[in-house]
């Protein structure tokens, strides 16, 4: 293995370690929310520091690679993609922490009925599944699987879009649950962001593998159509 290959594979290993850590945070954040497990929630928040250390370390590794090895082509794309995936992982970790902070102070689980009507749990599970599959896509360089994320994110968006009306309706009939309702709404909003961040990661995988830029594609198309009208 030549020198730069060793550096690049070291970078990938580091990123996978961070990925595992954030996956643990996200999974635990879900479990803590469902079971009102304060202990677990505190653990997730605590892990944030470790994730931040990974974030800084990976940024530094990328900086060194750029400065010392001046990578080009596929190597350059790997470093650039890693920088962005790293940033998105860190944000997803933050979200898991944010959700856990809500849970930390709860004595009992969230009202199952409200979770049911908002679809919050299936949303959480899909976000987790996407996160896992995205990791597999990165590891196996599978751009088809990465592309699938772009579609799957739409399900999360759908649940998010419906959520305010559902919760507003629910609260109208159950005014005692306002605080709880707002918390669930905030969690749903965070999960919607997680979907976006997983999509960002998927786009970086495609860029790295195929040298294709897929982000902002649909927006641009709409804009072009808009210009014509």
């Amino acid at each position, binding site marked *: 293995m*030549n020198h*730069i*290959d060793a550096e690049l594979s070291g970078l990938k290993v580091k990123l996978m370690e961070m990925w595992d850590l954030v996956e643990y945070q996200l999974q635990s954040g879900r479990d803590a929310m469902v079971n009102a497990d304060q202990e677990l929630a505190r653990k997730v928040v605590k892990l944030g520091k470790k994730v931040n250390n990974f974030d800084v370390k990976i940024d530094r590794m990328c900086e060194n690679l750029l400065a010392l090895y*001046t*990578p*080009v*082509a*596929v*190597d*350059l*794309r790997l470093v650039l993609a890693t920088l962005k995936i790293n940033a998105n992982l860190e944000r997803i970790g933050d979200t898991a922490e944010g959700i856990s902070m809500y849970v930390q102070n709860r004595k009992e689980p969230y009202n199952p009925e409200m979770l049911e009507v908002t679809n919050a749990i299936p949303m959480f599970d899909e976000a987790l599944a996407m996160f896992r599959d995205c990791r597999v896509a990165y590891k196996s360089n599978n751009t088809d699987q990465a592309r699938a994320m772009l579609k799957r994110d739409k399900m999360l968006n759908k649940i998010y879009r419906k959520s305010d009306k559902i919760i507003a309706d629910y609260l109208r009939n159950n005014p005692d649950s306002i605080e709880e309702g707002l918390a669930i709404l905030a969690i749903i909003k965070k999960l919607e962001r997680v979907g976006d961040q997983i999509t960002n990661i998927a786009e970086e995988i495609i860029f790295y593998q195929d*040298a294709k830029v897929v982000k902002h594609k649909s927006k641009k198309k709409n804009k072009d159509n808009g210009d014509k009208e």
Partner: protein
Amino acid sequence: MSKKPYKLEARNLNAYYGGFHALKDINIAMEEKAVTAFIGPSGCGKSTFLRTLNRMNDYIDGFRVEGDILLDGRDIYNKDIRVDELRKEVGMVFQKPNPFPKTVFENVVYGLKIQGIKDKKVLAEAAESSLRKTALWEEVKDKMDKSALALSGGQQQRLCIARALAISPSVVLMDEPTSALDPISTAKIEELIYELKNDYTIVIVTHNMQQAGRVSDQTAFFYMGELVEYAKTKTMFTSPKHERTQNYITGRFG
């Protein structure tokens, strides 16, 4: 944006050193007033190809070419082309600075004197103008009658470029022009190449991949006598099409 016209073009070019097939079916068109870089491992044919562009290989025993090289649409290997006339059009700068053991002034005006120009005023003006183009004038204007060999390596190389420019070529070929220079002199030459492309068509052979990235508009990758890939430099260094190009530019050759 309108496309620049092609200055130099090779069509089905094959070159041989005796039985050795050094260039295989090269087809390439180089834009006017742009910088084209040739990259590739040693022995890939890039220098041979560069040298065919002003017929520097003509006197090598057993060397022969087939196919066409067009300069402004005219085949430079045509019988009615005079090599000395061709070289007025197509100047060349080599890897190691090779000033003549003469004064700075004599070096710059050497080509003009060969052409029979004797007018001192004309020569002095040409010398100054060429030295200004290579950003050397301020450094050597008080040393015009000193030996060129007393200049630093970087200055000598810029002097050689000035010498090439003095005869007003339209194409300048550079064969690894900075490989014998320190980083500062290299940076100066690269700056110079960037400036010169406003007026000249430049073709450069370089082993320094980053240099190709910095100075050229188009890059051609040669391997075993073949032109593997030729594209915008930006494309070559971000998303080359061929695996061999990628392996070469990322340093994973062989």
